C-alpha cells in the first residue's frame, strides 16, 4: 500500500484531479455546481500539468452541454481518453449523445455533481432528478456519497469503464459533496497507475475510427435487424457489475478502502434498514451508529452501483434478519408508482429471492420515501424518523421526510432536537458578507487544520441568492475521526458574527450550545457592546453562559492597510479562541498560509496580511457578561408593514430565514408567485447614499436612468401635491418648458439603495463653489435612514405623471416614467439592470418577458422576492424563465400565441358586430396603438367591450372575453446574456431573428458567463482573461450585430448606456416600435470585468470602450431602407483614444500583462487592429447609398 497523503479539497476538485490525470480530452460547458471541475482542468492545462502519461490534456469549452457531448462523442470515437463534467439541464442536453456513446460501447466517464432539474422552479442545488433522467441511456451509474468517495469513485469508474466498455455516469451530490471542503486521503498517481490497465487504453485506441483500417458506425437500421442488433450489447452489461466490483477490490488493495456495489453498515442483526444513495448515506451512517449504540438494531444500505442494477449483490448485502426496508429517493417522479431506486429495489429483491440468492428468507416489508430535494437538509433526526416509521404499526408509505406536507400528509414528523453530533467535534459557524472574505478565510482555516493536525476537517458554505450585499454562512467541523455529518450545523460551540449589521437580522445564537463561544466584530468596545445587543441575544448569552468576545476588525484591518477586508483578522481570532491548534502554532500557520496564498500576488499584500495577524490579538477582548438583560432592542419584522398578509406569510417568512418552516400548502402548486414584492424587503445595504442638491441639479435624469436598482427616481407634479410633505422633503421648480409651473423632485430610496455611486459618477452638474460636489453626493446612510424613509413613502404617494403626456424620446422627460423593475438582487453597480429598468419604464405595463437562465433570471426571480413591479393600475411585466438554451424560441412562442389570440379576437368581434356595434368593433380592430395615447384608448375600448359582453352567454361572447385583453398591444421581450445569445441559445436566436415576428431581443452583453463565474463566451473580446481563457482569449469577439444585420429585416442596435444614454433610449423606442424582430446588444459592465463596479466605475468603462472604438454604437433600422435611406446609423464617433487605454483600465485584460506580458502585447495590438477594421467596415456600411428595396419582415401569421 502506498504512503497515505492527506489533502483538504472539495468534491469537484477531487473528481477533476483524477479525471484530468486519467484522460486526454475534456469537452466542457459551465453549469452550476459542476463548473469548477472543468475550470480546474482548464487551469491545470494552462499551467502545463500533465496526465498519467506525461501529456497535457486538451480542454475544450463548447457552446452548450449538447455541443460538449458531441465533441466528447467524436473524441471517443477517434480514440482519445475523454471525459466531461456537468449537472442538471446540462446532463439533459447530453442525453441524446449518451445513448449513442453507450450504444457504441465506448468507455468514458461523465462526472456529475447531481443537481435539481428545473420544474415549477429552477434550483441550483442538489438532488438526483438529473441523473435519474439519464438512467435509460445505457450508462452505468455509480454514486459516491462523500468527498473521499467522489475522488475514489472517479478512479474506480474510470477503471471499470475501460474494462467493461460500458460508459459510466459518476455522480455525487451537488453542493453538499461538490462544494464541501473535506480532509481526505489523496488518490495518488501511483494508485491511479495501479488501477488503469494500459492494455485497455490501447484496446480503446484500436477500436477508434482510423482511415488506415476504416470502419463505419452510426448506421440506420430497419425493423428487420435493429432489435437483434440492440440486444448484442447484453454480455457487456451482464459483466459490468462484476467488473466494477473487481475495480473496487483492486482499489481496496491499493488504498485499504474497500467499497461494494451495495454497502451495508449497521447491526449484523438489523431488522430495519434504510436504502439510499448519495451524501444522505453519510448522515444515515452516522444516525445508524448512534442508534445502534443505544441498543437499536438498524442498518443502512448504501447503493453505489445503481446501473447496471445487480439484484444478487443487493440481496447479499442485506442481513438475514431484515424485516423492513425504507428506500429513500432524492428525486421525484410525479405519477410514477414510486421513485426509481424504490422500484429497482422492489423488483431486484423479488427477482433475487426468486433466484434463491442471499440470506433473506422472505420478502421484507418495503416502504419508500422522498427526501432532500434541492439540497433540503437530510439529518440523522430524519433518518431516525424513517426508522420510527418502519417500526410503526401503520407506517406511511410513499412518504416524504424533511418537510411539512400539510396537503397530502405525506411527511414524517421528526424531532429537530435529535442530534448525533459528537462532543469531540469542534463545530463553528461564521456569519459574514461575501465581500469581507469570510469564506475564503474559512477555507484557508480548514486547510491549515487539515494539513497540520491529525484532525479531520469539513467546511460547507451557504451562499446568498442575492448578489448585492451577499451574506455567507460557513459551517466548519473539526474532529479526530472522519466527519460524516452531511448536514448543516445546528448545534455549534463557536459562532462568529463578522458583520455587526447581522445582529438585528439573524438569530445567530440559537444554534450555540451552552458554554459556547460567541465572537463579534463590532466598532463598540468591550464595555459598551452589551447595550447595543438585541434583547433576544442578551437573554441567550446569559442563559447559555456564553463566552463573549469582541474585536474591532475594521479598525485593525484599516490600520494594517487591509482596507475593508477583515478576513485575516477574524481568522486569527477564531484560531486564538477555538483552541483547535495551540495559539503560537496557529499564528505561525496562518502566516505561512498567507505567504502561500498571496505570495504570487506581491510582497505588499503578504506584508499587510501578516501585520493584520500581529495586530489582532492585541485587539481581541472578552466581554464581562452582566447578569441582567437590559436591552429593549427587538429583531425587526422582515418585511415592511405595508406588505399584504399573504405575501408576509410566505415570502416574508423566507426572507426572515425561516423558509424551512413553511408547509406545502404555502405554495401555489404550479410555481406561480405575485410580482412587486421586492419593495417589502428593506435591506439597508448602503453605508452611504446619494443626497440630492436641488440647487445644483440640472434635471438631466442621467442618474435616474443609470441606477441599477431603481432607487433614485424623479417625479414631476402639481405643487399642490406638496401639502403635508415631510419637513425634509426636497422639491424644486421643474425646468422643462412643458412642465412650467410644476414641481420636480429627485428622491432616493435610502433603504433599498446599494450605495454603488453610479448616479454620482454620471452626474454632469457640478457645484460652482466646490467642484468636487455634484448635484448628488454620497453621505452616510444611517443618520438619514428614518427621514429618507418618510420622504420616500411620501414621494411614492405623489401621483405618477400621465404616460400620455410624457415625451418618451427625450431622456430628461422619459425618465419620469415609473420603473416596473426595482430593488433587484443584482450586484451593486450592475451594468445589466439599467436596461431592464428602462424597458419596464417604456413598455412594462404591457410587457411579456421571457428570460434566459443566467444573472438576469436570478436577480429577476430568485425567491423570496421579485423586482418586477406593477403600476397603480396593477399592470406590469409578466415574466417567466424557460431554460438557458431556448429563450428566443420561448419568447417567440409568446408572440405567436398572443398574435393568434388577437387574430381570433378580431374574428369574434366581426362575428359579434351586431351585438357590439360598428364603432366599438371598428375601433378595436383598427386601433392605432403606436403611442401611449393610442394604447390608453384601446384599453378603454376593451373595458367597454367587456362590459358589453358581461352577461352574454353565447359561446362567441365567452370566447371573446377570454381573448379580449390580447387586443391591447403586447410587447414581447426576450432577455438574456451573451452566454445565451452568442453560445447556447444562438441557434434559436438566429431562427427567431429570421422569423420576421415582432419580438424584441435584449442581449445584456457582459462578454463572459457572469452568473456561473466568468467563463469565456464567444462574445469575450480578444485578450480578455476568463475561465477557459486563462491565457487571454486569443480570438476576437463574434460580431452578433453584423450577423443579424445580414438578414436586412432585423432591427439591430448596439448600445452602451454609460457612454450615450440618449442613443440607448432611441434604440429601445425604435426596437419596440419595429414590427419585426429587434435585437439590442447592450454593453453591460460587470463584476467579472475586474473593475470596481460597486464604486460607480461602470459608466466610465462604457465610455472608455466607446471612445476607444472597442465598442461601437449603432442602429440598423430596416424601415429606413424602405424609405430610401441607409438603414445603418453609426452613433459613435471615430476613436478618440487607443484600445489599449481601455483594456488597461480593466483587470480582465490587465492581468494578462502580469501573467503573460508578451501575449498581452500581441493581443492588445491585434485588438487595436480589430477596432480599426471594425470602424472601417461600419463607417463604410453607414456611408453607403442604399440600393434597391429592403427586405421586409415576414407578415405575422
Amino acid at each position, binding site marked *: 500500500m502506498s504512503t497515505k497523503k492527506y489533502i483538504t479539497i472539495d468534491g469537484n476538485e477531487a473528481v477533476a484531479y483524477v479525471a484530468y490525470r486519467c484522460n486526454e480530452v475534456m469537452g466542457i460547458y459551465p453549469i*452550476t*455546481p459542476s*463548473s*469548477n471541475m472543468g*475550470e480546474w482542468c*482548464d*487551469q491545470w492545462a*494552462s*499551467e502545463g500539468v500533465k496526465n498519467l502519461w506525461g501529456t497535457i490534456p486538451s480542454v475544450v469549452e463548447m457552446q452548450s452541454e449538447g455541443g460538449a457531448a458531441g465533441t466528447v462523442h467524436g473524441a471517443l470515437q477517434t480514440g482519445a481518453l475523454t471525459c466531461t463534467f456537468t449537472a442538471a439541464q446540462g446532463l439533459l442536453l447530453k442525453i441524446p449523445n449518451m445513448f449513442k456513446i453507450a450504444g457504441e460501447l465506448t468507455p468514458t466517464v461523465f462526472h456529475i455533481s447531481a443537481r435539481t432539474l428545473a420544474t415549477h422552479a429552477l434550483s*441550483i442545488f442538489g438532488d438526483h432528478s438529473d441523473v435519474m433522467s439519464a438512467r435509460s441511456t445505457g450508462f452505468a451509474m455509480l454514486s459516491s456519497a462523500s468527498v473521499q468517495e467522489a475522488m475514489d469513485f472517479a478512479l474506480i469508474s474510470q477503471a471499470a469503464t475501460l474494462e467493461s466498455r460500458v460508459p459510466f455516469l459518476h455522480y455525487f451530490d451537488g*453542493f453538499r459533496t461538490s*462544494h464541501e471542503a473535506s480532509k481526505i486521503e489523496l488518490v495518488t498517481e501511483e494508485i491511479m497507475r495501479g488501477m488503469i490497465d494500459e492494455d485497455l487504453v490501447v484496446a480503446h485506441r484500436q477500436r477508434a475510427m482510423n482511415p488506415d483500417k476504416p470502419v463505419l458506425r452510426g448506421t440506420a437500421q430497419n425493423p428487420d435487424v435493429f432489435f437483434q442488433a440492440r440486444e448484442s450489447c447484453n454480455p457487456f452489461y451482464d459483466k459490468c457489475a462484476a467488473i466494477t466490483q473487481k475495480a473496487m477490490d483492486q482499489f481496496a488493495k491499493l488504498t485499504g478502502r474497500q467499497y461494494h456495489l451495495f454497502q451495508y453498515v449497521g447491526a449484523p442483526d438489523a431488522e430495519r434498514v434504510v436504502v439510499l444513495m448519495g451524501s444522505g448515506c453519510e448522515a444515515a451512517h452516522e444516525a445508524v451508529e448512534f442508534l445502534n449504540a443505544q441498543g437499536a438494531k438498524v442498518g443502512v444500505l448504501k447503493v453505489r452501483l445503481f446501473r447496471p442494477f445487480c439484484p444478487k449483490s443487493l440481496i447479499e448485502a442485506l442481513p438475514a434478519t431484515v424485516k423492513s426496508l425504507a428506500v429513500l429517493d432524492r428525486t421525484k417522479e410525479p405519477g410514477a408508482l414510486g421513485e426509481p431506486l424504490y422500484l429497482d429495489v422492489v423488483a431486484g429483491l423479488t427477482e433475487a429471492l426468486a433466484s434463491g440468492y442471499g440470506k433473506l428468507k422472505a420478502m421484507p416489508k418495503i416502504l419508500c420515501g422522498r427526501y432532500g430535494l434541492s439540497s433540503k437538509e437530510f439529518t440523522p433526526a430524519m433518518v431516525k424518523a424513517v426508522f420510527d416509521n418502519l417500526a410503526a404499526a401503520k407506517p406511511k408509505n410513499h412518504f416524504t421526510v424533511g418537510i411539512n406536507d400539510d396537503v397530502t400528509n405525506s411527511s414524517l414528523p421528526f424531532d429537530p432536537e435529535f442530534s448525533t453530533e459528537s462532543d469531540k467535534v469542534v463545530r463553528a459557524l461564521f456569519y459574514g*458578507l*461575501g*465581500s469581507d*472574505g*469570510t*469564506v*475564503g478565510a474559512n*477555507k484557508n482555516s480548514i486547510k491549515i487544520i487539515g494539513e497540520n493536525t491529525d484532525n479531520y476537517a469539513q467546511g460547507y*458554505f451557504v*451562499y*446568498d*441568492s442575492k*448578489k448585492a450585499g*451577499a451574506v455567507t454562512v460557513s459551517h466548519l467541523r473539526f474532529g479526530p475521526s472522519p466527519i460524516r455529518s452531511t448536514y448543516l450545523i445546528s448545534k455549534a460551540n463557536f459562532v462568529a458574527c463578522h458583520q455587526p449589521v447581522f445582529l438585528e437580522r439573524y438569530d445567530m445564537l440559537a444554534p450555540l450550545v451552552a458554554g459556547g463561544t460567541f465572537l463579534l466584530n463590532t466598532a463598540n468596545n468591550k464595555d459598551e457592546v452589551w447595550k447595543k445587543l438585541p434583547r433576544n441575544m442578551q437573554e441567550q448569552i446569559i442563559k447559555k453562559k456564553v463566552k463573549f468576545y469582541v474585536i474591532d476588525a475594521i479598525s485593525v484591518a484599516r490600520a494594517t492597510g487591509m482596507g475593508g477586508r477583515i478576513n485575516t483578522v477574524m481568522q486569527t481570532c477564531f484560531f486564538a479562541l477555538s483552541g483547535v491548534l495551540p495559539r503560537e502554532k496557529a499564528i505561525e500557520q496562518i502566516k505561512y498560509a498567507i505567504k502561500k496564498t498571496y505570495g*504570487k*500576488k*506581491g*510582497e*505588499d*499584500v503578504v506584508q499587510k496580511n501578516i501585520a493584520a495577524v500581529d495586530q489582532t490579538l492585541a485587539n481581541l477582548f472578552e466581554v464581562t457578561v452582566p447578569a441582567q438583560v437590559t436591552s429593549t432592542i427587538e429583531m425587526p419584522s422582515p418585511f415592511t408593514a405595508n406588505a399584504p398578509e399573504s405575501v408576509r406569510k410566505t415570502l416574508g417568512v423566507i426572507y426572515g430565514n425561516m423558509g424551512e418552516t413553511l408547509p406545502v400548502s404555502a405554495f401555489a402548486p404550479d410555481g406561480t408567485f405575485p410580482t412587486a414584492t421586492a419593495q417589502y424587503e428593506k435591506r439597508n445595504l448602503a453605508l452611504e447614499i446619494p443626497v440630492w442638491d436641488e440647487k445644483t441639479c440640472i434635471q438631466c435624469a442621467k442618474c435616474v436612468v443609470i441606477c441599477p436598482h431603481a432607487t433614485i427616481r424623479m417625479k414631476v407634479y402639481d405643487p399642490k401635491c406638496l401639502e403635508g410633505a415631510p419637513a425634509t422633503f426636497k422639491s424644486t421648480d421643474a425646468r422643462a418648458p412643458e412642465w412650467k409651473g410644476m414641481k420636480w423632485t429627485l428622491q432616493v430610496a435610502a433603504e433599498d439603495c446599494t450605495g454603488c455611486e453610479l448616479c454620482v459618477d454620471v452626474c454632469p452638474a*457640478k457645484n460652482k463653489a466646490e*467642484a468636487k460636489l455634484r448635484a448628488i453626493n454620497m453621505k452616510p446612510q444611517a443618520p438619514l435612514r428614518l427621514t429618507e424613509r418618510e420622504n420616500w413613502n411620501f414621494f411614492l404617494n405623489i401621483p405618477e405623471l400621465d404616460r400620455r403626456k410624457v415625451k418618451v424620446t427625450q431622456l430628461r422627460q422619459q425618465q419620469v416614467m415609473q420603473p416596473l423593475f426595482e430593488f433587484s438582487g443584482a*450586484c451593486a453597480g450592475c451594468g445589466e439592470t439599467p436596461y431592464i429598468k428602462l424597458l419596464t419604464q417604456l413598455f412594462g405595463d404591457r410587457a411579456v418577458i421571457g428570460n434566459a437562465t443566467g444573472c438576469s433570471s*436570478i436577480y429577476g426571480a430568485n425567491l423570496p422576492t421579485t423586482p418586477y413591479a406593477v403600476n397603480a393600475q396593477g399592470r406590469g411585466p409578466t415574466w417567466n424563465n424557460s431554460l438557458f438554451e431556448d429563450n428566443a424560441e420561448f419568447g417567440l412562442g409568446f408572440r405567436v400565441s398572443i398574435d393568434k389570440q388577437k387574430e381570433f379576437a378580431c374574428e369574434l368581434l366581426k362575428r359579434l358586430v351586431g351585438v357590439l356595434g360598428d364603432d366599438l368593433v371598428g375601433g378595436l380592430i383598427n386601433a392605432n396603438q403606436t403611442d401611449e395615447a393610442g394604447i390608453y384608448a384601446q384599453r378603454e375600448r376593451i373595458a367597454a367591450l367587456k362590459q358589453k359582453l358581461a352577461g352574454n352567454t353565447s359561446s362567441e361572447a365567452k370566447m371573446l372575453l377570454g381573448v379580449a385583453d390580447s387586443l391591447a398591444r403586447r410587447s414581447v421581450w426576450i432577455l438574456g446574456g451573451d452566454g445565451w445569445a452568442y453560445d447556447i441559445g444562438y441557434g434559436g436566436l438566429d431562427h427567431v431573428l429570421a422569423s420576421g415576428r415582432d419580438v424584441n431581443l435584449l442581449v445584456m452583453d457582459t462578454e463572459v458567463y*457572469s*452568473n*456561473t*463565474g*466568468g467563463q469565456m463566451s464567444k462574445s469575450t473580446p480578444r485578450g480578455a*482573461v*476568463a*475561465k*477557459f*481563457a*486563462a491565457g487571454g482569449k486569443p480570438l476576437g469577439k463574434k460580431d452578433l450585430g453584423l450577423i443579424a444585420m445580414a438578414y436586412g429585416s432585423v432591427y439591430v442596435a448596439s448600445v452602451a448606456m454609460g457612454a450615450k444614454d440618449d442613443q440607448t433610449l432611441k434604440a429601445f423606442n425604435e426596437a419596440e416600435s419595429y414590427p419585426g424582430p429587434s435585437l439590442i446588444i447592450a454593453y453591460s459592465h460587470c*463584476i*467579472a470585468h*475586474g*473593475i*470596481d463596479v460597486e464604486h460607480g466605475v461602470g459608466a466610465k468603462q462604457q465610455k472608455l470602450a466607446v471612445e476607444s472604438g472597442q465598442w461601437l454604437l449603432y442602429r440598423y433600422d430596416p424601415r429606413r431602407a424602405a424609405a430610401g435611406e441607409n438603414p445603418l446609423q453609426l452613433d459613435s464617433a471615430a476613436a478618440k483614444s487607443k484600445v489599449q487605454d481601455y483594456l488597461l483600465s480593466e*483587470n*480582465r485584460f*490587465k*492581468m494578462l*500583462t*502580469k*501573467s503573460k*506580458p508578451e501575449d498581452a502585447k500581441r493581443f492588445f495590438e491585434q485588438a487595436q487592429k480589430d477596432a480599426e477594421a471594425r470602424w472601417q467596415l461600419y463607417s463604410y456600411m453607414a456611408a453607403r447609398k442604399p440600393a434597391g428595396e429592403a427586405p421586409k419582415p415576414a407578415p405575422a401569421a
Partner: protein
Amino acid sequence: MDLTTKYLGMTLRNPLIVSASPLSEDVANIKKMEDAGAAAVVLHSLFEEQLVKESAELEEALVHGAESFGEATSYFPRASEYKLGPEEYLAHIASAKKAVDIPVIASLNGSSVGGWTDYARQIQQAGANALELNIYYVPTDMQLAGGAVEQTYVDILKAVRAAVTIPVAVKLSPFFSNMANMAKRFDDAGANALVLFNRFYQPDIDLEELEVKPDILLSTPFAMRLPLTWVAILHGRVKADLAATSGIHSSDDVLKMLMAGANATMLCSALLRYGIDRLRVIEKGMCEWMEKHEYDSVKQMQGSLSQIKCANPAAFERSQYMRALAGYKLA
C-alpha cells in the same frame, strides 16, 4: 573633432543622452536612438508606487465578488504566477542591452525607501550599465519639516548605493532650501552623478468639465535656465558628474549646458516633439558650431562658463538678479 565625454565613469561618444521617457519603452526606438547618435539612453522609469498599486489592484480583482454567490465562487481563473514585481522592466533592460551597444541606464522612480534596494539589485543583475534614481516627492504634509524630506532623499540614495556596484545618478528636484547643500550631501552619500532637474508635472484645470486634469506639457527652451544656473554653480564643487536636463532642444542649448559644466545633456521633449532623428540635427549643429568657433573637443568647453570659471560669477546669484530687474525695460 572629439565629442566624447565622461559620465558615470563611462566614456560616451558625445554628450547627448536620451532621458527617461515613454520612447524607451520600445526596444526598436532605443535602436533608433543609437543609430541617430545618442550616446546613452535612460530607460523609462520603473515606478515603485505603480508596482504596489498594481499588486493591490490585482489582489482586489481576483477576490472581488468571490465566495459570495453559490454559482460564482470566483470570477477569474487562478493564474499560477503573476509578474507583479519588476520582471517586465528587467526583461526590457536585458533586451535593450542586447539590441544596442550604447550604455543603458535604468531609472527607478519612487518616494520612499520601500522596495528600492531590491529593485536596484535586480536592475544591476539585469545588466543595466548604471542606475538613475528619480526621487519624486511632492510633500504636502504641513507637519513634515524640510529637513526630514531631505534626509529621506539621502537615505534612499545611501540604501541604493550600498546595494549595487554600478554607478548611481540622482535625478533631483530643484525645490530645496539650499540646493548647493543638498548637492553636497548627495555627493557625500556617494552619488556618481546629479541629474538637474526633474520636471514636476503640474496639473491643469479643465474649464468645461470643472476638473483638475493631469496634463503633461513638453518642456520649452526656457526651462533650461534653471538647470543651466545650477550646473554652472555646482561645476567644480562636487565630485559627482553633472547631467543637465529640461528644455534642451537645440545644439546651442547643448553647448550652453556643456559650457556651464555639464558632463552630459539629456533630451526628451525635443525627441517627443520632433522625433528621434532630432539627435542627428543636434549633433550636426554642435559640430558646425565647434568647427566655426574652432573648438577641438567637448572637454575643452566643459565648465568654461561655470560660476567659478566665468567672468561674472555674481550673474548666477541674487545681486545680479537685482541688477537684471533694474535694467529691464518695458517694450
